């Protein structure tokens, strides 16, 4: 059956017509086989231009349309809609980019005409093989999963819950709150971190639309936008939360003390049954089985004996719960750079070298020293403190990126040390980066009032090897003071390493679990770095906060809210339509060789064991076509990019050229 193709050539004012002889082109195109009509017009994208096409479709009965104009990224949607209005399936349309690829990049008019012909010939050959396609419409489950109960996740969950939709908030630790709960003060306003965070934690814990799943991890995600099924493992708390009142007696009576390497960053102790901090949400404690005397030695049960409600349940097992959601927000946060990786800074070897989280706990009034800044001996107040910026950041040996928060954090530390100890403070920096609202003012404030000495230079090493008088018993910071061009050795009592932010150690596995991408640094990849920063390439999965890249609290909160807004928008629409560019398996031809099974990063391909064939879930498929190219049996077809379409396009492109070649003497 022969098709009736209409070819429309745009002048784009003089943008195309100034270089390409559009009249000759249109005349030539009219002579092509299968072409019923070819026209050129000043602006095809104008309403008059579109009407021209619509009229031809209706009056001449065109079955295919080709527009030679600008890039399809500009007007493909415009012309598809135009075809649709005239009753032609929008996928029976092709575009040839003769502006971006011809008239704007070619000076020679003869050559420009030839190249335009080749592109149009390719499009005409291809469009004949195009198939009518319908967008895929799917319903959206209004429930939402938020992974990560730090400030970002809390913000996102509250926004969605307040909008009237149900949220499952999953947190790995016993309490929500995240790193922010560990901090003392927040820059640049220096308000107390807990004072601004705990009300939000409380709201999240009590909101009727939020199901809180702490001490839990997502194990499996199936499905696609609007229709995810999630499996979450709730680790055994060994505490029956139905009965527990959060009175804290078990924790008081527990005889076993353990160094708390998580919340207290190794600076303080906790019990074997514990809530990480007094304002924890939920209030229920968890039992650390590895350290519990009963679990290790078989006797004790002090907690059980004293529990007034009988909530201790030594036999409690992990529980896997499953639920459906329509959208997912990942707010999984960050890990602190391990300062042991820089041995020359002495962390872990020299007692009075601290990392930033340790200092936060040291300085926190609710922390192990009650907010007193003292050395590890527990008594000595430091007389001099060195704060080292960019530890593990901006360094190709560790992380090449800037961690974004360390400058402000270090300035905050300088202020807190000065305020609490009166010590001489040194800040060692490469550049001071204070770009956001009221940040540089904070820097100026420190410069004006705190007598902090700023030394521009990346510290080479911290050592206890005294060489010069006055160095004995001190930590010596060896650095080039680059502003005077001299190496200096500065003895101090305490060193604080402003360690960088790193992606979670398991970011890659988490990304795989949710079918999204990780950058080379292992931050989650957003759909567009500027214009779509919270969406991902996987429909229905959003990212927010530091898991997407280093950022401070205000930006994390903003992203949490932004992701929530995107989700609420989708849920309100109730349905989502997906581009029908999808791959599908012809089960007849599929022999179940399983070559394609690991080709899909979106987990769209599954192997049906009973039928012995592979199958593609069209809603999960993103249409890249990689599996189509991989299938050795030719059993996978990629709609709108079929082999027939592409091979014909190649033929079309080369048909014109061969004609030209023949004319050139060999």
């Amino acid at each position: 059956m022969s098709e009736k193709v209409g070819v429309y050539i745009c002048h784009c004012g003089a943008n195309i017509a100034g270089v390409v002889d559009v009249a000759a082109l249109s005349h030539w195109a009219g002579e092509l086989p299968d072409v019923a009509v070819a026209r050129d017009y000043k602006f095809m994208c104008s309403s008059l231009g579109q009407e021209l096409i619509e009229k031809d479709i209706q009056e001449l009965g065109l079955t295919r349309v080709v527009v030679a104009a600008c890039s399809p990224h500009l007007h493909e949607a415009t012309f598809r809609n135009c075809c649709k209005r005239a009753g032609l399936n929008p996928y029976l349309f092709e575009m040839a980019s003769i502006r971006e690829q011809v008239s704007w990049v070619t000076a020679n008019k003869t050559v420009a005409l030839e190249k335009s012909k080749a592109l149009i010939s390719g499009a005409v050959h291809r469009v004949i093989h195009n198939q009518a396609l319908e967008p895929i419409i799917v319903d959206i489950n209004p429930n939402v999963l938020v992974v990560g109960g730090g400030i970002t996740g809390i913000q996102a969950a509250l926004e969605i819950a307040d909008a009237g939709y149900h949220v499952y908030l999953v947190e790995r630790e016993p309490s929500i709150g995240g790193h922010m709960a560990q901090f003392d003060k927040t820059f640049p306003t220096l308000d107390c971190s807990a004072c601004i965070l705990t009300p939000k934690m409380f709201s999240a814990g009590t909101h009727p639309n939020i199901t809180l799943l702490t001490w839990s991890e997502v194990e499996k995600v199936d499905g696609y936008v609007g229709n995810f099924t999630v499996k979450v493992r709730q680790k055994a708390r060994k505490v029956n939360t139905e009965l527990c009142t959060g009175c804290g007696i078990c924790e008081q009576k527990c005889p076993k003390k353990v160094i708390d390497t998580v919340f207290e960053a190794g600076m303080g102790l906790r019990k074997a049954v514990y809530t990480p901090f007094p304002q924890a949400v939920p209030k229920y404690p968890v039992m650390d089985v590895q350290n519990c005397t009963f679990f290790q030695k078989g006797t004790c049960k002090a907690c059980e004996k004293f529990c007034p409600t009988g909530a201790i349940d030594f036999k409690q097992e992990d529980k896997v719960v499953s639920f459906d959601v329509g959208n997912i927000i990942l707010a999984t946060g960050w890990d602190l750079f391990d300062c042991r990786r820089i041995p020359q800074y002495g962390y872990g070897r020299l007692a009075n070298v601290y990392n930033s989280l340790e200092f936060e706990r040291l300085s926190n009034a609710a922390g192990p020293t009650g907010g007193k800044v003292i050395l590890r001996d527990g008594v000595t107040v430091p007389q001099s403190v060195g704060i080292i910026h960019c530890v593990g950041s901006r360094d190709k040996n560790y992380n090449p990126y800037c961690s974004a928060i360390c400058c402000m954090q270090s300035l905050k530390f300088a202020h807190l040390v000065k305020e609490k100890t009166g010590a001489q403070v040194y800040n060692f920096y490469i550049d001071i980066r204070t770009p956001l609202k009221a940040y540089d003012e904070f820097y100026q404030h420190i410069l004006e009032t705190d007598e902090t000495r700023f030394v521009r230079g990346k510290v080479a090493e911290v050592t206890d090897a005294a060489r010069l008088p006055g160095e004995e018993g001190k930590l010596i910071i060896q650095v080039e003071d680059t502003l005077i061009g001299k190496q200096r050795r500065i003895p101090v009592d305490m060193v604080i390493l402003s360690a960088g932010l790193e992606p979670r150690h398991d970011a890659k596995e988490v990304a795989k679990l949710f079918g999204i991408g990780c950058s080379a640094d292992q931050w989650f990849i957003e759909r567009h770095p500027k214009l779509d920063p919270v969406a991902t390439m996987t429909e229905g999965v959003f990212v927010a906060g530091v898991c997407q890249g280093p950022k401070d609290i205000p930006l994390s909160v903003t992203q949490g809210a932004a992701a929530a807004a995107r989700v609420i928008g989708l849920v309100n629409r109730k349905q989502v339509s997906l581009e029908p560019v999808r791959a599908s398996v012809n089960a007849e031809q599929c022999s179940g060789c399983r070559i394609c099974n690991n080709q899909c990063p979106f987990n769209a391909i599954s192997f049906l064991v009973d039928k012995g064939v592979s199958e593609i879930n069209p809603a999960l498929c993103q249409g890249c076509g990689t599996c189509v190219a991989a299938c050795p049996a030719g059993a996978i077809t990629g709609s709108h990019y079929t082999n027939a379409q592409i091979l014909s396009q190649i033929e079309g492109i080369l048909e014109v050229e061969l004609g030209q070649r023949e004319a050139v003497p060999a």
Partner: protein
Amino acid sequence: MKAYAYFPGCSLEKMALSYHQSALECARRLDLEFQELDDWNCCGTTAYFAIDQLLSYTLSARNLALAEKKKLDMVTPCAGCYKNAYFTNVTLKRDADLAEHINEALKEDDLHYAGTNQVYHLLEVFCNDVGVQEIKKRVTQSLNSLRVAPYYGCQIVRPRKDHEEVENPRYFEDLIAATGATPVEYQLKMRCCGGSLLITSRKAAFSMARNLLQNAMDNGAAVIATACPMCQVNLECYQQQINQEFGARFSVPILYFTQLLGLALGASPKELGFGSELVSASAVLAQIRNKETSTTQSPYIRHATS
């Protein structure tokens, strides 16, 4: 018996003869066969790079080609030779054009570099190929908790080769511990001794050597073990001059690690080239012989002003 192509380097011919003797003695006692390269040449040390990088690669390539002729991996006790040979090998393997160019020159001596072998430092062979556990088994004469400061120096650990730890490696300590001695922890074990500046910038060299000796002594070293002839000469032969320069009173034996290892493996001091020291090692030998003593006092008396 595992065999290696052994490239001693110029210093080991005379200046560091005891290193040569003790290295071979240790190898023999550890069942390693060291076949000395036939007609090896100077690797150019660091000085060559200042004149002609290409020539420096050529000099090392000749030695590598000699080793390839034996179809053996190369081992060298000299840190400088090691660094040059190792990185020449890496560079030529990576850059085929350069290798081709150099092979043209090597034809003059009927040699060809193909990049088929590896380059090891003596320490690596003992610590990795033989293994610390194996050495521990073969120790017949424990070094009696002698406080030995392992001195890594520069060119064995630096530049970085892969992703290995370069700020605080532990293999030298482990080797020393295997002999029954006590490895001394001190901060400057990776720091440059200044040896390569001995002739060109003596003041700097002495100052660096002084810092190093001082740091080792502060941490109670009875002896410093080196794995590089230049470090040994700088720290030992110039100790008197350093004392004069800074008014110090260092008298620390600087021994090749192979001399200490050799003793532990049961060799006699004579077999290990003892006797050519400018700073006497008799106290060290005495402690090893005296089984009753398990700790030694540092012979160093701290200088008042430092």
